[in-house]
C-alpha cells in the first residue's frame, strides 16, 4: 500500500543535542509537510516543500530546519532542542496544490530530557 512512513516512532534526545526525524513516502506526491503537535492541540504547520521549493511558516523558530533530498524523503532537523520542543511531529504529503487532502504518517513522538 502507498503510504507515509516516519522513523523513528519515538525519539528521546537531550536538551541541546541535535536530532533528525525522517519521513518517506511511496505516494509520489509533490508536496511534503512537517507539523508539530503538542498535547491536546491541533497540528501546527512548520514548513512544507513544493517539489524542491522550501516554504517556511513565519512563526517557525530558526531552530527547525528541513531537507528534501529527493521526492520520496524529507527530514526535520532540530538543531538545539529545548524542553518546549517535546511534541509529536507529523509528516504529511499531498499532490499539488496545497489545499488538497493530505496524507499523514504515524508521527514521531519526541521527548527532550
Amino acid at each position, binding site marked *: 500500500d502507498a503510504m507515509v512512513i516516519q522513523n523513528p516512532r519515538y525519539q528521546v534526545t537531550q536538551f541541546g543535542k541535535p536530532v533528525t526525524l525522517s519521513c518517506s513516502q511511496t505516494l509520489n506526491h509533490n508536496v511534503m509537510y512537517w507539523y508539530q503537535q503538542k498535547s491536546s492541540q*491541533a497540528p501546527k504547520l512548520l514548513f512544507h516543500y513544493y517539489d524542491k521549493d522550501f516554504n517556511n511558516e513565519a512563526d517557525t523558530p530558526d531552530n527547525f530546519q528541513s531537507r528534501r533530498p529527493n521526492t520520496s524523503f524529507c527530514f526535520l532537523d532540530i538543531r538545539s532542542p529545548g524542553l518546549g520542543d517535546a511534541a509529536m511531529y507529523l509528516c504529511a504529503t499531498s499532490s499539488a496544490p496545497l*489545499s488538497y487532502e493530505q496524507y499523514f504518517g504515524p508521527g514521531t513522538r519526541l521527548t527532550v530530557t
Partner: protein
Amino acid sequence: AQSVTQLDSQVPVFEEAPVELRCNYSSSVSVYLFWYVQYPNQGLQLLLKYLSGSTLVKGINGFEAEFNKSQTSFHLRKPSVHISDTAEYFCAVSVYGNKLVFGAGTILRVKS
C-alpha cells in the same frame, strides 16, 4: 484568512447512540473542507472531504458530513457509534492554493 471553530472540546456518548461533532468555518471565498480522525499516538487519517458537488459527503467508518454554505458549517455525524470510534476529530478548511487550517479538535468518548 480562513478559520475553523469546533464548538465542543469533548463529546461523551454511549455506544450505539448517534453523534454529531460540530464545525463552523469562516472564509470570504469558496472553501474545501475536511474531517480527520486521530487515534492515540497516531497520525491523522482522512475521514471525508468536501471539494465541490453534493453537499452530503459520506466517508469511512460510517461517518458523513453535510456542507451548509449559508450556515458556514460542516458537521460530522454517525448514526450509531462504537467503542472503537473513541478518538480525537479535527475539522479543517482550506482555499485553493493555501494550506489547511485546523480546528482545535473534538475528543469523542464512547462509553459502554
